[in-house]
């Protein structure tokens, strides 16, 4: 079983976590055409490469981000969402 390093709880078995999918673009709902809004809701990109994903540590209900290589399933790093804000 894979281990995932939770930024708050340390390394834990992957079955303690729930994936919430890749971080998506955040289009302005008031300035997005209907077709684009539908695409935003229902179409997910699934490209090879490294993605940043939302993960939840279920017992502590803590959400964090993980950089993962979709080809090798290697988790490059995990970090608290506040770091994302700091970067942007």
């Amino acid at each position: 079983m894979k281990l995932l390093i939770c930024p708050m709880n340390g390394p834990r078995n992957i079955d303690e976590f729930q994936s919430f999918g890749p971080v998506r673009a955040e289009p302005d709902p008031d300035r997005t055409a209907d077709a684009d809004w539908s695409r935003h809701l229902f179409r997910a990109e699934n490209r090879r490469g490294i993605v940043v994903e939302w993960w939840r540590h279920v017992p502590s209900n803590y959400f964090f981000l993980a950089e993962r290589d979709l080809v090798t399933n290697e988790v490059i790093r995990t970090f608290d969402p506040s770091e994302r804000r700091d970067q942007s």
Partner: protein
Amino acid sequence: MNRLPAPWGSRIDRSRPLRFSFEGKDFEGYAGDSIASALAASGQWVLSRSFKYHRPRGILSMTGADANTLVQLPFEPNVAADRTPISEGLRVSAQNVNGTLERDGDAIIDRLGRFLPVGFYYRTFMGPRRDSWLKFWEPMIRRKAGLGVVDTTAPHRHFDKSHLHCDMLVVGAGPAGLNAAIAAAEAGADVVLCDENPEIGGSLTYGRHDPAMLADLSSRLRALPNLHLLTGTVCNGWYEDNWLPLIQGDRLYRTRARTVILATGSIEQPAIFRNNDLPGIMLGGSAQRLIRHYGVRPGQKAVVLATGDEGYCVALDLVEAGVSVILVADPRSGGETGTFEAELHGKGVAIRKAVTIEAAQGTAGNRHLARVRVGGRWIECDLLAVSAGQVPAWQLPCQSGAKVGYDAASGSMMLSLPKTPVHLAGSVAGDSDLQGAIAGGHRAAVAALLGLGHAVVEDKIFTRPMATSPVHVLPIVADPKGRDFVDFDEDLQVKDLQNAVKEGYREIELVKRFSTVGMGPSQGRHSALATARIVAEATDRTVAEVGITTARPPVGPETLGVLAGHHEPLERRTALHARHLALNAVMKPVGAWWRPYFYGDAGAAEKMIRDEITAVRQGVGLLDVSTLGKLELRGPDAGEFLDRLYTMAHANQPVGRVRYCLMLNEMGSVVDDGVAYRMADDRFYVTATTGAVARVYADMLFWNAQWRLRVDVLNLTGAFCGLNVTGPKARAVLEALESDIDFGREAFPYLSGREGVIAGVPVRVMRIGFTGELSYELHSPSSLAPALWDAVMTAGKPYGLKPYGLEASRILRLEKGHILIGQDTDAITTPDELGFGWAVSKKKPFFVGKRSIELRARLGQSRKLVGLRFPADAMDLPGESCLILRGNAPVGQITSIGFSPTLGCTIALAYVHVDDSTEGSLVMVKCRNGNLVDGPVVAHAFFDPANARQEM
């Protein structure tokens, strides 16, 4: 009669004879004997009939890795007789026989073999009808070509699971694994060492080695408290980040190791020639195991096929065990005369070079080996020990990322480890001689310890000695008449694989699927290399290009009990569970929760439920609503947070007020509802539906991980209990209790909340009305809830207060037309379809789902949830989920239905076409019996449409 004297037989205890039966016949063995060894000791060599041709089969490997020895126990099929110990009174029978093992009626199939070519089943049993395969052929073939029988009346067994954590797991306690584990433990690492055998030592226990070596390793091992030894334990897979299941009997150890050394050894390979499957033909290691482990003489007159020193050792062992070795056939031509060769010569054993076994013949019915042909000459014998090389046990290494390679010069498979989290040691790594294995064990331990951060000095003496003996690639002797088996499990011969290639299946994966090679219990252990060689030759490629198929977990068979979960399902009980039971509640599960369905006489459900409903409508009732989701939100942005999450306005909600809240997903569908009580400017108490609270709680934090508002969310669902006191007399009951809360109509109006103390219990009280009656919902810490319940019950006595259950609650809310999320909504329900336009703020710039409901509103509304009121004298009534038809097309369905004692008729909630949703419309409902009935539409609540009662 084949039992050797002591000291042969390290596993058996001659002081403890055991009786057991095989095929109804009594046998005797010793404690420590396996079924196969005890039978062999008594001269019973045939253990099974083969899968397809029903040929007699016997001991092949003595490792539990082949189908030859699978037998049936009373409660367990497919048991490996060469691994399973006998016990007193054990009843063993053969499986896959028609008649008896000795006289199998289906043995005739062996002579019809040429009519059963590879792929025969795929082509032959297609017709005559479409379902002929499933209805007729498949059951028939399953009877003929089955394995064991599952006894569904078998008693329950207890299985359990345990967790292990260690610095290092060493799989395999042979010379390499033992040396690696001891070296690592002596360096201070916390080591787990496991081996599938009942004792440590691996080849040291059955090979021709100095017994002092094992004794020394054993005493060093025992002196190490940080070395945890698990014998009789199978490592059945490698999973990511070094997570490995270790199975010891009926216990599963889920093991997480910081580093892993795989010393899984190697698998001796059979030779291929005509009739190579006869009982009496076994692997060299198998003969040695019989002799040294069990003190069983594997034959009287033996021929040994030897392609290296191991084979010469087998011959020497046989001579010492009193077997007359007639010939050692060595396919290698010339070469140096080794010490073993001279030793054999000294014992008078003939050795022929540059010859191999060309064919074998059996006794009547092929029940045992009778003779073998070597260099064109037939030699009478009853044992052929085959020592023709081995392949590394590749299963676990490959699961961890190792790649299989092939060295054409030596004809051997080898493993390489490009960047894997495991280390290999011993013959699995190609170090098949003893000194090499010991050195390899030390090397692996040093590498693994360095990886763990231990300061280890690499020891120079542990370098790999050079291989000295010449190597030889044993030819595959295909026979024009077949019966030259490549895969004993599946009865596949050389020509079957060649034919599979001729059919166009060139790739090894396709050859496997078409021919079933490697799909049997041995999973290619004895056939993968030979298959690769045959396919390589047939397709004019190299063995490396052809490769072998992927070996996935589990490595060996595992009992389903080891994998199964607990017998007892998880259940949740409210703090008032005992109170309900004391009142004779009939309890029902609602998700994980157990709730009272109704109270009182279980045989008079209908009356009990009606009485409960009447009590609420006319007097006062009490409902345990503790299963409701309860969330507390704190922080300066709490109001803003709720504004974004729910459809109504909460930022401007006055302190002390309670507001309905409706949650949408991003698609604009209704996913939850509840109420929000503003306890302070920066503090809300929010309820969620029982089934959705876990997800709502997760979603709240998911959204806030993105929004990063200053708010904390606390899930109080288990920590708080809820009591709903409801009915016209509810206020009187509460006013009779000692409290600092004023329950008066003006002081505590509808849709407001108060904090205080009732009967000494701190409470949060909300005036809300799921039943449509005057209601107070009392929330208190769970530990104090029973005291509060008792106080309310006592105070309510003079008013006829009656606890009511889930069914009464369901009808009470249905009479009011109140919806249940998930029951009356589905994945695409919008607020408009529920008539909940009033609950959606038009002023807020944003809330989750806003953009989507606006978009969906433009697409047009097709259905609406309405009430249906069926006449009291209706002959047919629909049930839940019955369709609403318009013309012939379904436009909706009944979502809730029940008899209302208050109204004296059956009422329902249903989705109807939006054009039929006005009061007085009639819709067509299809009942379960197929009859169509009219459903008169009611646009408002069935009972008290003006909602006067709840605001009293």
